[in-house]
C-alpha cells in the first residue's frame, strides 16, 4: 500500500504546506493525505513530510506550495523540489473577484468603512506595508520550530520556550 503511494507520488505534483524547520538549505513540506483503515472502513488523516530543494527561498512557513519529486535524490533527505507557491500564507486573494481578502471581508470594504467613520493616521495601511518577513527573527519567531528550554547556554536562543 505504502509503496503504491510512494510510486504515485513520484509522478505527480503534490500540494502541501510549508512547516517550520531548522534545515537551512531545504524546506519541509507537510502533505495531508487520507488513509483507509480496513478494519473500520474509515479514512483517517495521515501526514507525510518531504524535504524540498529550494535554493531561492521561495516559500516561507505556512505557504501552500506545489512540489515534485526530483529525478534523483539530491541528498538522503532532500527528495523533492518546490515548483510554485500557490497560496502565500496570510495574504489571501478571492479567486472569484481577484480582490484581496482579510477573513470574511474584502480589504477595500474595510478601508471604506474606516473612511466613513473618519480614518485616523494610526490605522494600518496596506499600501505602505512592507512584504512579509521584515519582523522574522526580531519579534516574529515562527520560521523555526520552538522547543522546551533544556539547558542554560551562554547564548540565549529565542526559539527555546
Amino acid at each position, binding site marked *: 500500500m505504502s509503496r503504491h503511494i510512494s510510486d504515485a507520488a513520484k509522478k505527480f505534483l503534490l500540494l502541501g504546506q510549508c512547516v517550520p524547520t531548522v534545515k537551512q538549505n531545504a524546506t519541509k513540506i507537510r502533505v495531508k493525505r487520507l488513509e483507509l483503515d480496513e478494519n473500520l472502513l474509515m479514512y483517517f488523516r495521515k501526514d507525510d513530510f518531504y524535504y524540498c530543494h529550494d535554493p531561492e527561498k521561495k516559500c516561507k512557513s505556512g505557504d501552500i506550495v506545489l512540489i515534485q519529486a526530483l529525478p534523483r535524490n539530491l541528498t538522503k533527505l532532500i527528495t523533492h523540489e518546490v515548483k510554485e507557491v500557490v497560496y502565500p*500564507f*496570510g495574504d*489571501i486573494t478571492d479567486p472569484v473577484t481577484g480582490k484581496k481578502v482579510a477573513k470574511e471581508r474584502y480589504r477595500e470594504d474595510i478601508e471604506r468603512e474606516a473612511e466613513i467613520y473618519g480614518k485616523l493616521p*494610526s490605522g494600518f495601511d496596506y499600501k505602505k506595508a512592507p512584504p512579509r518577513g521584515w519582523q522574522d527573527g526580531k519579534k516574529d*519567531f*515562527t520560521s523555526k520550530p*520552538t522547543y*522546551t528550554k*533544556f539547558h542554560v547556554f551562554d547564548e540565549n536562543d529565542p526559539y527555546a*520556550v
Partner: protein
Amino acid sequence: MLRRATTLFIQNRGVNQLVKPLVNIKWTRPEAIPAYKPERSGDLEGLPQIPSNSLGKEYSLCEEIKDAPESVKTIFSIEHLGKKEYNVLVKKELTDRVRRHEYDERTAETRIAKLTGHIRCLQDTMEKFPRNAKAKQTVQELIDKRKKLLKYLRQYDYKKFEWLLEKLNIEYKAHPETYHKLTRKESLRKLTEMHCDSIRQSKLSDYRNLLESQQGPFLTQKLDALKFIRSEQTELQLPITVTEQDIKKVEDQLKEWKIKDELKEQAKKKKRNILLD
C-alpha cells in the same frame, strides 16, 4: 570466591562510573520563570509613561474641568482617582497606537491592544503582590487569549500581524510541538548528541584542512611534471599529449589555492593576536 570477586568487580565498576563519567557534560537546569513574567509572555516594554497629574478618561471629556482651578484638577487626576483609572488610561494609550477610526473597538488589533494594556497592568500588580492568586490567574488567561488572537491574525493577515507586533512591542513565538515537563534524561540526551556532533564536525574540519594544506605542494609538483613531459615530448618529436590548456588549468588552480591559503593564514594570525591580547 567467585561471588566475592564478581561483587567487587561490580562495585568497582559503579564507583568508576561515578568518578569518571564517559562524557564530560555539565547540565544546569534552566530556572523556572512564572508564565506571567514579561520575558515569558513576550512583552518587550513595561507600562507607558503617563504623568500622574493627567485627568481620568471620563473626566477629561467634561467641559467644566477645562477652566477649573488647580485644586479641582488634582482631585480628578489619576493620582487621586487610583490605580483603576490609571489602568483605563494605559489601555487607551495602547489602543490609540493602532486604532483605525474613532469608534474602532472590536477589530482584532484594538482587541489585542486592549488585552496588552490589561496584561501589562496586571504584570505590574504581580510584581508588587506576587501572591495575588486572582491576578495571576487572570493574567495567564489574558496572555493565552492574546496569543490565540495573534495566531488567527497571522493566518488571515500576515502584514497586519507584523505591523501590530512592531507597534505594541510584543514577541510572538509559535507553540512547541509538545508542552511537557523537562526531564534530566531528555536534557542529557540532547546535550550528548550536541557534544557528539561537535566532535564529528571538528574532526571533519581538521581532515579537510589537512587535505587542503596538501593541495598546494601537489599542484606545484603536477605543474612541474606536466611542463617536463611537454618539453620532453617536443624534444623527442613524439605525439604531444599535454596541451597548453592543461598546464594553464593547473596554474589557475594553484593561484586560487594560494589566495585561499593566504586568507587562512591571516585568520590564524588574527586569532593568535586576540589570544595574546
